[in-house]
């Protein structure tokens, strides 16, 4: 699989999981929350300072449809994470060519064309 195609497929999977799959997630408390409740410290939790964010609890404020509300928040989150993490990785990466040639030797159809 060519590199660019691989990237595109990976992104689509992430978008589908966050945008569509998340609707079917279990609504049960997670392990920590459950244990906190059972052992008596859940009440200590306080609302986050970000709890009035327009994306709080993975729900976009002002969207009526439940599926869309959560899916949109998931898609926006994925894109935000992709931009920040990808940008960060791009900024600190090793520059230049040297091992590019040596390590992509096994790629059947890798295009040497520089992306950006």
């Amino acid at each position: 699989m060519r590199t660019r195609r691989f990237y595109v497929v990976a992104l689509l999977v992430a978008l589908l999981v966050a945008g569509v799959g998340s609707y079917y997630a279990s609504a049960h408390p997670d392990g920590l929350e459950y244990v906190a409740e059972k052992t008596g410290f859940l009440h200590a939790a306080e609302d986050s300072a970000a709890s009035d964010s327009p994306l709080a609890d993975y729900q976009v404020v002002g969207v009526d449809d439940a599926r869309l509300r959560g899916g949109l928040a998931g898609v926006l989150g994925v894109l935000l994470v992709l931009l920040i993490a990808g940008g960060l990785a791009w900024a600190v990466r090793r520059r230049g060519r040297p091992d590019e040639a040596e390590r992509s030797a096994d790629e059947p159809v890798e295009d040497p064309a520089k992306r950006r």
Partner: protein
Amino acid sequence: MHVPDAFLDAPTSIATGVVAAGAVALALRRARTELDDRTAPMAGLVAAFVFAAQMINFPVGAGTSGHLMGGALAAVLVGPWTAVLCLAVVLLVQGLFMADGGVTALGTNIVLIGVVTTAVGWLVFRGLRAVLPRRLGVVAPAAAVAALVSVPAAAVVFTALFAVGGTVPVENGDVLAAMVGWHVLIGIGEAVVTGLVVGAVVKVRPDLVHGARDLIAERTLEIRTTGTSA
């Protein structure tokens, strides 16, 4: 296991914040050795996938659920230092935009979900790789076992932090037993997802899997040169 605000007292939260900041600063310097023109986009995609996967809580019985943490998965795919950066970005976006995990607890969450699962996952993975045959086929199973271990490890560290700086007096032994018990179960889900995802990437593009790099070098060059680090 996103920790909300006020589970831990201020001194403990500040301490975990300092540890998290130190770990991220170190990771920023070390990740350079793991990232090049081809793997940098992978880092963005792995972070995006971990964010997406963390939205999918799977039931683990008796009214409880869990989701992927992703430290072991990210470490095997893009390398441990880059994985810390990926998870830190995921947790930052979750904490600041989604109100998932507290804001003052951000350092705690980066330590638990970003650093502990990555470090434990990577060490277990490397340990297994060292004793298993040098074949691509072992990469995904080794990643799965590493993922399984990484989740209860984070649960143990949370329990320790709560024993030191918890805002509610509890029976530490009870918290430890419950945390480890449930997180072993959640760890099984973590292992399944990690094994499947790493297996899929190894199958189509093994050269993009950090934890399989040494095997690829062997396969393509046949001759092992000195000085190539694993």
